[in-house]
């Protein structure tokens, strides 16, 4: 019962009962799902560079203060 209910809810959000949507731009032809994954990878790449790592500044300051290279 729970499985059927969950499938119904997910089906309402992600309707897969149709041929795949395709992004067609000149010679480039990609399924929409792949385009979304590529966009998410670009976002992850940008966020990984921009977002400070927890404790990184403290560690760098400690190292500079300690005189270690």
């Amino acid at each position, binding site marked *: 019962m729970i499985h059927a209910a969950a499938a119904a809810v997910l089906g309402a959000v992600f309707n897969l009962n149709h041929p795949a949507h395709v992004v067609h731009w000149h010679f480039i032809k990609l399924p929409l799902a792949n385009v979304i*994954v590529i966009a*998410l*990878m670009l976002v*992850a*790449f940008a*966020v*990984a*560079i921009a*977002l*400070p*790592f927890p*404790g*990184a*500044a403290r*560690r*760098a300051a400690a*190292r*500079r203060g300690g005189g270690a290279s």
Partner: protein
Amino acid sequence: MSGAPESSWTVKVREKAVEALPPEKLLPDGQPTYVASWIYVFGVASIASLVVIITSGTILALKGPAWWHYTGVGHFFNGIHMWSVELFFFVMVVHLWGKYWMSAWRGGRARVWVTGAITFLVAVPTALTGYVSQQNFDAQWISTQAKDGLNSVGVGAFFNVTNFGQMYSYHVLLLPIAVVVLVSAHVLLVRRHGVVPPIELNARLATASAGEAPPPPPAAAGAGS
């Protein structure tokens, strides 16, 4: 000493191995400050995904197609295997982008870069042979489409994607061994040469070694990539 002759091959191999990768480099106490950045996390995320892939794949191989198609737990492990592959490629591509844009082959690290790039290339047919080994209509569709593509470049019957036995052997034995060997070599080479430093740090070290006063450190030192 144990009195082993100096010409013993075991002694030579051990000495070479310790010389190339002393214990303090193989298992270091810590990493440089610049490694504290999210962009350096994607390498180990790739390895973590690979561990999940191999573990779930081993369980699928033990239980067989009827289990992964017709039982709830089988569906679950089938899903774990497929999504860990998706995650593996996702984080591996971000890792590859990060290393490309920081020219990770600097400082004698060409072999580190090459083993990583070859791992990516070998991982692609490893995944393809998995998709065609599912034993369902999806596998039939993918294998016939791939057959057209491979025939068009002259691969022919040597690598036959419509041959389940051959594809399954490639997928559960030959290609995973290749991926694991390549990843192991990649990690050992990273240990040997150290994690590649940011380009700006290399420039500062070069300036300092030339006898000039190094410029002040950037504000984001240690936090950025």
